C-alpha cells in the first residue's frame, strides 16, 4: 500500500486535496463576505470587526499562514494538472465540442486555470491595497483603530479599481461554479446523474451569491459616491 | 489418417469420469516446461488460456482485435444454459443432454454432448465466482429464463449482454495471468499458418497486423479457438473480423473439416436495407414469445401494415403449425420466411422481410409490459431502422448466425493432427445439425475451462516431443508460404475490390447454399464459386502494402479462404442427400414439408480431407459413424 504522502500525490489524492483546500477557501470566502457586509452595518461596525481580527495577534498570524498554505496547495495542484494536461494530449483536436448534458464542461470548467491565476494575482493586490494600504487612525469608544472603512470607500471612488473588482468577482463566480461542484463531487465520493444535477445547481447558486455579494460592495460605493443610504455615517 | 473418436468405453454417464481417471498427468513442476499456443481470445480461447496458465503452462495467446476483450463472443445476447434446476421444474443433466441431441437432429456425438451437459453447472459456478453479474431474484439468488427447444427454464442471463459479461469474466481471468507473467499476449496478430513438424502441430506463423511482420512461434501444442465461419455469406450476424482463415489453413495442413454445410440461420434479424449494408443485427428470439409473424395474403401489397385488415393478413406460422405457432424452432421459422418472400409476399422496400407484430400483445398486456420485457430490443430496432415498433410492426428476416460445422476433433478435442486442439465454435463437436439457443456459450466455456486442461495434459504427458527452435524446415516453409500468399494478393493489382468479391460470394452462398438447398442449385453454386475464385486471382485489387496496418489486405486473405471453403460447403450439402437440422434439401422433405432425415445412410459426421492437386481443390470424405446407444432417433414434429 502506498504511504499517505504517496497517496496524496496520486491522481485520486491530488483531487481530494484540491477539493479539501477548495472547500476551505470557499468557507473563508463566505466569512469574508459576511465580514465585508458589516460595511452596511452601524457606522463603525466594519472598523470594529477589522480591529477585533487584528487584535487576535498570534492567532491571526497562524490563521493567515494556514490560509496562505491552503491557497498555495490549491494553486499548485491546479497548475500542475494544467501543465500535465498538455502532455496528456500532445496533438489536439481540429474540432472539439462538448456533447452537452450531462456533461458539466462549460466555460467555468475549462477556464479554471485562467480564473484561478487571476484570482491569485488579485489576492496579492487585494492584500496589498487593504491590509498594507495607508490608513488613518481613529478612536472608537476609547479604542484606537485603523479607519479601514474610509480606505475602502476612498479606494472605490476610482472607477478603474471598481471595474477591476467587478471583473474579478465575476471570474470568481465562474471559478466557484465549477469548483463547488467539483470539490463536492470529489469529496462526497458518490453521486449518480440525478445527484450530480442537484449538486451542480446548488453550486451554481452558491457561486452567483458569492460573486454578486462581493461585487455589490464596490459597485454600490462607487455609484453612490460612498454616501448611499446603506452606509451609515 | 484414421478417424478415431477416442470415446471412452462404458455407460454414457461414466465416460467422462473414466477418461479423467485414465489420463496422463503432467507433474506440477513440469508444466512450466511446456509451451502452448492459444489462437483466439473468445470464450473458448480466453478460458483455455487462463486455465492453462493457472496450471503453470507457458501460454502464448493471439487475437486479431486490439484487445482480447473484443472477440466476437462479446456480442452474444440471450444467455447460457445449465442444468442447475434452480427453478425446480424438473431439469436434469440427462434432459439438457437429450434436448441438445434432439435439437441437433441426431447428428452429434452422444458422448460429447453428455459431457457438455455434465459440465454445464460448473461453468455457472465459475462465472459467478469471477463476478459475472447474472440476473438475480429479489432474494439475491440467480434467475433463469426459458429459451427455444426446451420445456424447462435453464438459461442464465445478464440482460441482453450475456456474452459480454461471460467474456469479460474470462478476459479478466486471462488478464490476471498476463499480470502474473504466465501468458505472452499478442493482440492484433493474425495466424496465417500451422506448422506441422514430424507429424505434430508444433507452431504457427502470424502476421503482426500493425507492422506487417511475419513471425514464427513454436510450441508443444496449438489450440485453435478461432470461432465460426458464418461470414462466408458476407452478410451475417458475426463480427466483421470473424473468419475461417486459421481453421482453413490448418485444414490445408491436414486437419479434417467436418460437416461444413451445417449453418444456422436465425429467423429474427433486422432485414437488409440496401446493397451497402455491411452486417446484419440479431434481435433476440425471445421476441417471438409475444410477437406474431405475418405477411399480406396478396403479392406486392404496398399498403402501410396498419392499413391491411385482419382478414387480408396471413399469419403463416400459426396457420401451418397450430401447436407451436410462432415458437417453432429457428430452422422452421427461417425456412417459412423464405417461402413467403419467394412467393412475392415479402414486405418493406426490398420485399425481403416479414412482419413481427406486437399490436395484439400491446393491446392484451399493455405497452408497459412489452416495454419492460423487450424495451432495449425495441430501442435498438428503432435506432437502426428509424421505425417505432410500438406503432408499426417490426420487419424481420433470417440471417446467417452460427456454424455447427468446423474442424473435426475427437473426444479430447484434438484434431486428426496430433497436438492441434480445436475449441469453441471452430470445432464441429456438440451441436449436430442445429444448435439450440444459449448452448454455444456453454460449449465454448466447457471446452476452455473444464475439458482442455485435462486432455491437453493427457497429450503432453503421453508424448515424447523433441525440441523445436523455429528454424526447422517446416517453419521455414510455412513462413515463406505465408509471405508468398500475401505478395500474390498484392500483386494481382486488378480492378475489383475485395468487398465486391465477398458480396458476390455471399450472394451465391445465400441463394444456393442457404436456408434451403437443392441438387441443381448446389451444382451451380460449386461452379460459380470456382469461377469467382479464378476471377478473384485475376482481378482483385488490394490497396496498400504488407509492411503496414492494412485492413483490406487482411480481408483479402480471408475472402480468398472463404472462396475455397464455400465450395466445400456446397459439396458437403450436395453429398448429404437428406435434410437434417439446418441442412434442408428440397428433395428430402416429408409430405408436410418438414426435414426428412435418412438415418440409414447419413448418420455420420462428414470429415473432409484436403487434397490440393495442381491448383484444383479436392477433398476426400471420411466418415465417422454416429452410434446412438442411449437415445432413440425420432422424427422432429412441431405441428
Amino acid at each position: 500500500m502506498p504511504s499517505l504522502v504517496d497517496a496524496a500525490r496520486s491522481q485520486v489524492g491530488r483531487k481530494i486535496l484540491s477539493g479539501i483546500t477548495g472547500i476551505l477557501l470557499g468557507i473563508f470566502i463566505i466569512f469574508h463576505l459576511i465580514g465585508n457586509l458589516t460595511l452596511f452595518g452601524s457606522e463603525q461596525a466594519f472598523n470594529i470587526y477589522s480591529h477585533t481580527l487584528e487584535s487576535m495577534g498570534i492567532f491571526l498570524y497562524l490563521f493567515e499562514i494556514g490560509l496562505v498554505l491552503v491557497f498555495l496547495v490549491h494553486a499548485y495542484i491546479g497548475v500542475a494538472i494544467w501543465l500535465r494536461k498538455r502532455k496528456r494530449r500532445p496533438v489536439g483536436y481540429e474540432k472539439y465540442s462538448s456533447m452537452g448534458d450531462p456533461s458539466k464542461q462549460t466555460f467555468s470548467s475549462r477556464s479554471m486555470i485562467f480564473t484561478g491565476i487571476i484570482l491569485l494575482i488579485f489576492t496579492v493586490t487585494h492584500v496589498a491595497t487593504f491590509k498594507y494600504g495607508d490608513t488613518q487612525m481613529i478612536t472608537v469608544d476609547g479604542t484606537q483603530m485603523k479607519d479601514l472603512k474610509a480606505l475602502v470607500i476612498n479606494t472605490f471612488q476610482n472607477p478603474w479599481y471598481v471595474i477591476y473588482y467587478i471583473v474579478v468577482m465575476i471570474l470568481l463566480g465562474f471559478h466557484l461554479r465549477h469548483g463547488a461542484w467539483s470539490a463536492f463531487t470529489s469529496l462526497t465520493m458518490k453521486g449518480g446523474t440525478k445527484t450530480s444535477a442537484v449538486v451542480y445547481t446548488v453550486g451554481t447558486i452558491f457561486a452567483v451569491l458569492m460573486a454578486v455579494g462581493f461585487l455589490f460592495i464596490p459597485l454600490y460605493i462607487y455609484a453612490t459616491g460612498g454616501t448611499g443610504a446603506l452606509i451609515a455615517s | 489418417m484414421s478417424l478415431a473418436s477416442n470415446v471412452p468405453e462404458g455407460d454414457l454417464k461414466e465416460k467422462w469420469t473414466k477418461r479423467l481417471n485414465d489420463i496422463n498427468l503432467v507433474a506440477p513442476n513440469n508444466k512450466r516446461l511446456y509451451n502452448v499456443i492459444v489462437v483466439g481470445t473468445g470464450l473458448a480461447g480466453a478460458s483455455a488460456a487462463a486455465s492453462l496458465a493457472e496450471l503453470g503452462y507457458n501460454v502464448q495467446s493471439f487475437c486479431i482485435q486490439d484487445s482480447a476483450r473484443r472477440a466476437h463472443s462479446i456480442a452474444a445476447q440471450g444467455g447460457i444454459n445449465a442444468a442447475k434446476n434452480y427453478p425446480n421444474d424438473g431439469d436434469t443433466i440427462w434432459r439438457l443432454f437429450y434436448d441438445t441431441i434432439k435439437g441437433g437432429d441426431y447428428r452429434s456425438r452422444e458422448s460429447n454432448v453428455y459431457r457438455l451437459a455434465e459440465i454445464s453447472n460448473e461453468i455457472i459456478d465459475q462465472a459467478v465466482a469471477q463476478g459475472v453479474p447474472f440476473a438475480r431474484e429479489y432474494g439475491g439468488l440467480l434467475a433463469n429464463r426459458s429459451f427455444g427447444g426446451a420445456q424447462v427454464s435453464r438459461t442464465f442471463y445478464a440482460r441482453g449482454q450475456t456474452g459480454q459479461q461471460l467474456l469479460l469474466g474470462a478476459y479478466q481471468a486471462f488478464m490476471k495471468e498476463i499480470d502474473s507473467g504466465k501468458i505472452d499476449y499478442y493482440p492484433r496478430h493474425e495466424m496465417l499458418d500451422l506448422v506441422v513438424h514430424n507429424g505434430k502441430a508444433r507452431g504457427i506463423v502470424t502476421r503482426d497486423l500493425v507492422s506487417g511482420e511475419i513471425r514464427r512461434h513454436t510450441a508443444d501444442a496449438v489450440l485453435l479457438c478461432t470461432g465460426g465461419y458464418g461470414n462466408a455469406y458476407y452478410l451475417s450476424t458475426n463480427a466483421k473480423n470473424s473468419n475461417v482463415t486459421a481453421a482453413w489453413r490448418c485444414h490445408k495442413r491436414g486437419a479434417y473439416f467436418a460437416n461444413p454445410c451445417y449453418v444456422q440461420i436465425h429467423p429474427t434479424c433486422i432485414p437488409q436495407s440496401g446493397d451497402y449494408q455491411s452486417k446484419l443485427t440479431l434481435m433476440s428470439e425471445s421476441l417471438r414469445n409475444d410477437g406474431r409473424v405475418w405477411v399480406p395474403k396478396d403479392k406486392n401489397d404496398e399498403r402501410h401494415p396498419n392499413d391491411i385488415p385482419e382478414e387480408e393478413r396471413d399469419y403463416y406460422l400459426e396457420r401451418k403449425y397450430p401447436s407451436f405457432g410462432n415458437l417453432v424452432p429457428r430452422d422452421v421459422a427461417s425456412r417459412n420466411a423464405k417461402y413467403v418472400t419467394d412467393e412475392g409476399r415479402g414486405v418493406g422496400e426490398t420485399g425481403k422481410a416479414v412482419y413481427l407484430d406486437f399490436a395484439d400483445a400491446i393491446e392484451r398486456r399493455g405497452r408497459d409490459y412489452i416495454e419492460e420485457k423487450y424495451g432495449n430490443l425495441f430501442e435498438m430496432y428503432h435506432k437502426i431502422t428509424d421505425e417505432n415498433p410500438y406503432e408499426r410492426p417490426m420487419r424481420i428476416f433470417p440471417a446467417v448466425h452460427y456454424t455447427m460445422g468446423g474442424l473435426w476433433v475427437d473426444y479430447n478435442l484434438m484434431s486428426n493432427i496430433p497436438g492441434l486442439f480445436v475449441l469453441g465454435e471452430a470445432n464441429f463437436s456438440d451441436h449436430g445439425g442445429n444448435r439450440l439457443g444459449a448452448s454455444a456459450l456453454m460449449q465454448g466455456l466447457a471446452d476452455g475451462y473444464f475439458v482442455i486442461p485435462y486432455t491437453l495434459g493427457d497429450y503432453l504427458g503421453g508424448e515424447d516431443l523433441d525440441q523445436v527452435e523455429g528454424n526447422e524446415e517446416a517453419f521455414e516453409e510455412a513462413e515463406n508460404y505465408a509471405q508468398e500468399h500475401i505478395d500474390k494478393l498484392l500483386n494481382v493489382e486488378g480492378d475489383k475490390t475485395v468487398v465486391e468479391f465477398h458480396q458476390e460470394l455471399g450472394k451465391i452462398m445465400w441463394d444456393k447454399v442457404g436456408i434451403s438447398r437443392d441438387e441443381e442449385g448446389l451444382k451451380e453454386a460449386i461452379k460459380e464459386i470456382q469461377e469467382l475464385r479464378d476471377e478473384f486471382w485475376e482481378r482483385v485489387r488490394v490497396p496498400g502494402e504488407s509492411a503496414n496496418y492494412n485492413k483490406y489486405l487482411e480481408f483479402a486473405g480471408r475472402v480468398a479462404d472463404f472462396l475455397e471453403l464455400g465450395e466445400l460447403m456446397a459439396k458437403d450439402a450436395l453429398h448429404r442427400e437428406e435434410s437434417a437440422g439446418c441442412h434442408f434439401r428440397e428433395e428430402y422433405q416429408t409430405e408436410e414439408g418438414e426435414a426428412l432425415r435418412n438415418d440409414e445412410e447419413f448418420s455420420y459426421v462428414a470429415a473432409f480431407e484436403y487434397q490440393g492437386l495442381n491448383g484444383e481443390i479436392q477433398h476426400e470424405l471420411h466418415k465417422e459413424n454416429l452410434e446412438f446407444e442411449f437415445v432413440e432417433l425420432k422424427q422432429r414434429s412441431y405441428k
Partner: protein
Amino acid sequence: MSNDNMQFDLKIWKQEDGDSQGAFQEYHMEGVSEDMSFLEMLDLLNEKLIKNGDEPVEFDYDCREGICGACSLVVNGIAHGPKEETPVCELYMREFEDGQEIVIEPWRAAAFPVIKDLVVDRSAFDRIMAAGGYISTKTGSAPEANTIAVDKEDADKAFDYATCIGCGACVAACPNSSASLFTGAKISHLSLLPQGKHERKERAVRMVEQMEKEGFGDCSNHAECEAVCPVGISISAIARMRKEYMRAVTES
C-alpha cells in the same frame, strides 16, 4: 422513401504510421443513403478510393452493433458523434444534414498513440485491467453458484458498471485525457459484489497507479466522459473509485 443521395464534405485525419506526421485530407462524398451507418459511409468512400487506385482510410471496428468497443471516431468534435448513448457504429447518416461538412479524427491522447489514420493503440486499457481488474478464482475452485447471494440492487448496480465496452471515448472526450471513467467502472463493478471485496484494496490502488503510469491525465470533474459514453456509465463510477482508493490507503 428514404433519401439515398446525400452529399458530404469529409475532412479526415490521415497518418501513415505512428512515427509520421499526420494531416487532414478532404473528400467529397455523394450517393450516401440516410439508412447507411456512419461506418458504411466510410466503407463506401474506401470502395471508391480503392477503385481509383488511392489509399483507403483505416479505421477500427468489429461487431458493428455497439458491443465490442472497437469503433473509435471523433465526429465533428464529439467522440462517437452527436447521438447520445450511441457508439459510432450505430450512428446513421440520417443524423446529419445533407451537404454538411464532417470532420473525422482519431481518439487523441498520449496514452492512445495513432497506429494509422484513425486507428489508435488502446493497449493501455488492457494493462490497467491486468493491474488487478479481476477477481482471482482458480478454475474449478468455485463454490456452488447459489451459495453466494447478492442483493439484487447491488447486482443491478454492478451490472450497470460492468457494461463498459472499453472503447476509450471517455479518454478521447476528456479535456485532460483521463481514464477515470473506464477504470472507475471496473473498480465499481467488482467492489459492489461480495466476491470482489477480498481484493478490493489492492485492486483500487494498483489500477489507479497504472492509470497514471500509462500517461492518462487527471480527472477535473468535467463529466464530459459520462456524456459521450456509449453505454451511459455514470460518473458515480469515478466517485466510487476515489472512495475505494481512499479506503485502501486509510484503512491499511
